[in-house]
């Protein structure tokens, strides 16, 4: 096999947002990506990808990356957004058409027999997910907060990102 699918001319940083733009706050991920596309000073080293939901083949998008930031709406976040470091996890999302980021990392590990790149999940709080609904009023604010953080996170030097992430998780950000 020529394996064209595996010869990925990757940019070192991948931002992978998931969500349906027409299902209310499920659009938070894709909308953050839109803002980043116009707000980031340069996209030479950052690739922005969006999809409705995560699937097994997204493991192949993680190849040759030094950092991956997953972005998703979440009903489980209490503040505007949260950031967590990810590690491969064989969770129950394997029983669904939609996988969790940790499950995608587990597939990566199984497929490539190596640890996945350093990966984080940015969860933005969502309130309502009806088909055809606009972004909820509260989510508009959450999106802006998550955007400001993402800008800072993605424009830091790579080696500083874990420090920033840790500070955020400890409430220091």
């Amino acid at each position, binding site marked *: 096999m020529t394996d*064209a699918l595996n010869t990925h001319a990757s940019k070192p940083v991948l931002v992978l947002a998931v969500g349906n733009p027409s299902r209310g706050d499920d659009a938070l991920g894709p909308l953050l990506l839109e803002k980043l596309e116009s707000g980031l000073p340069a996209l030479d080293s950052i690739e922005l990808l969006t999809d*409705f939901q995560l*699937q097994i083949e997204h493991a192949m998008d993680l190849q040759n990356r030094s950092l991956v930031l997953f972005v998703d709406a979440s009903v*489980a976040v209490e503040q505007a957004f949260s950031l967590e470091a990810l590690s491969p996890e064989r969770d129950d999302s394997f029983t669904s058409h939609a996988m969790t980021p940790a499950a995608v990392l587990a597939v990566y590990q199984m*497929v490539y027999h190596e640890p996945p790149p350093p990966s984080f999940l940015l969860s933005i709080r969502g309130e309502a997910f009806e088909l055809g609904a606009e972004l909820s009023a509260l989510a508009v604010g959450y999106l802006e907060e998550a955007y400001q953080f993402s800008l800072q996170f993605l424009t830091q030097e790579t080696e500083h990102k874990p420090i920033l992430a840790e500070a955020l998780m400890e409430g220091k950000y």
Partner: protein
Amino acid sequence: MYEHLETAENRAELKRVVVDPVSRVEGHGKVTLLVDDNNIVKQARLHIVEFRGFERFIQGRPYWELPVLVQRLCGICPVSHHLAAAKAIDQLAGIDPDDLPVSADKLRRLLHFGQVMQSHALHFFHLSSPDLLFGFDSDISKRNIVAVLAEHTDIGLKGVKLRKYGQEVIRMVSGKRVHGTGAIAGGMNKALSITERDYLLADIDQMIAWSQDAVALIKQVHCANLPYYDEFATIKSNYLGLIKPNGALELYHGGIRAKTAEGDTITDHYDYCQYNDLIHEEVRSWSYMKFPYLLSLGKENGWYRVGPLARVNNCDFIDTPLAEAARVEFKAHGGQAAMVHSTLAFHWTRLIEVLHCAESIKLLLNDPDILGGELVRQGEKRYEGIGVIEAPRGTLFHHYQVDENDIVTKANLIVSTTSNNMGMNESVRQVAAEYLSGHELTEPLLNNLEVAIRAYDPCLSCATHALGKMPLKLELRSWQSEDLLASLTKHSDGRIEHARI
């Protein structure tokens, strides 16, 4: 058949078991069983618990937005909605299917083959192969793609890469992985470049070889477990789908062919624009999903199944050689019967279609028409358009009416899974009656219900998702008092908790 189990007579005296949600299907469905004191099943139903409101979502929009907009109805088969909508708005732009530019027609077919291939690959390797490779009653921690990758690495990897290849076909043809704008009213908005064509050609022979391996695998699994695989969840039904004018299997455009369980023709090469005279939909109070039926046979006998099993059963042949050879083998396994009714044979036929898609993609990639030529044609505006295609899960109908300002005033969609509603319910009742009735209801036994439903690859909802949802919880309650009698919970780590109150 098992329709007597749709509604029990003495409901107040029965216990209730709920499988909610059904896992490894798209969307939210639940199964309820009513059982008596001896666990004899008296009633079994698959309910759809989310109302989608597709039509309301579409009405009020300008029609030229629809091919992009309708992709958001479903995260699993957005391209199917994209193409069905495009076919409908072709008519609004005054273009009938036969008048579509040759290049546009071939590019749409290429897009569609990529979509069917990736959807079928996901379903088989990711969602169904754990059941098929490890057994329906296997430990729940094994029933997932990671376990397949660990113990059957080669099979798991092929699944991931077949899926990825199909996605790449979609990306090359429509310009983007999701929300692509490939099909527009009257044609396509771009041809394939030589670079894009060569990128896809580089791996297509490998994809064909892997598709052959997949067909060989499912044949081996199916035939190694005869007669069980031919009997599990099996029901006799009518079958419906599109067909080529020469009787070959068709996925993108053709007339409707419907056959009876015995293989007799109900209708053939029927113009789908007259679908309202062929199919009606019945509403039942206990489910949001309607029950379509063939008008000529009536509500009771007119229900039918769609999807890969229906298509392979209905067609006279497949017009790519490897898939045709696989079809002949498949039909032969059932002896002299005109139709194969095994519900688990959906898997086998699904993989025959993957092989057909891979072969067809290669043919199209070697066709110079996909590299340029006329891409769009416009005619005289019309006020009504109907587009029908064979989506991975079966026949998909999009029907729109517009006003003088090109705004959609009326929309009607019949999605594939709706056509399989009665079939899935009958399969659930068959499994409940033949495999569960009289036994204590354990998680592995209840998984049998889900195996039956998953064979249809149902898409029960749209692409919404949010973190933090519980995937599976079963409750056994008293039908009279609603008191909880027992529960079964699947935790995030796959651990099962069984509590008896």
